[in-house]
């Protein structure tokens, strides 16, 4: 259900695996995060992601369990890469199957929102002036507001 890994993933294969186990689910939503060419006004050639082994898995599991409590979900699959990742490569995959599309959309976004604020990953960007730690964004904290209603 959850993988933290250095190697890249195959989005199509992940989708096929979700679908093969989706049984009576009529909706599948996937989110993929990619390394952007430009971030915080400098040209980014690659990123490096560090994580807190053990805690990262544990907090991702916890977020998925919270999502299962809030919505009726079928399959949940989360992959987050760590280590060196080149520009325009894939970083993160979240895939959800559900009977109803609304539950799948909500859960997928919920997992991404909490992943962004609660799971111990830290990103450095490779810029022309060297590796730089990325600052946390206030907008990521603000995004959580929608889940407290």
């Amino acid at each position, binding site marked *: 259900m959850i993988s933290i890994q250095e190697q890249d993933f195959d989005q199509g294969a992940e989708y096929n695996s979700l679908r093969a186990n989706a049984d009576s689910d009529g909706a599948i939503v996937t989110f993929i995060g990619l390394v952007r060419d430009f971030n915080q006004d400098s040209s980014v050639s690659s990123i490096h992601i560090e994580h*807190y082994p053990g805690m990262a898995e544990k907090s991702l599991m916890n977020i998925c369990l919270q999502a299962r409590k809030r919505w009726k979900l079928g399959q949940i699959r989360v992959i987050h890469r760590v280590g060196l990742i080149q520009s325009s490569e894939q970083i993160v995959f979240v895939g959800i199957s559900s009977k109803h599309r609304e539950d799948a959309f909500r859960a997928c976004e919920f997992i991404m929102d909490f992943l962004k604020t609660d799971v*111990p990953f*830290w990103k450095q960007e490779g810029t022309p002036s060297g590796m730089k730690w990325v600052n946390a964004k206030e907008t990521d904290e603000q995004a959580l507001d929608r889940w407290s209603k």
Partner: protein
Amino acid sequence: MIQIRFFASLREHLDTASLNFEVNNEKTVADIKQQLVSRGEKWQFLSERDVLCAVNQTLTGEDAIVNDGDELAFFPPVTGG
């Protein structure tokens, strides 16, 4: 004895990934952080920056009690995804 771990920019700045720390009972995260800060100049960083903490791999507030054998971690706000 507890283990204290540091991650990302905090680990780099302190030049320390982990250290062992003697606790007598009923210490909070805030107490331990204060003791670290008093170690010298580079440790000021811990109180100046926005620092998150986790006890036994769960995010907590600084009022959390730390017991012998626990794993305590300090790190900057997370930036995954």
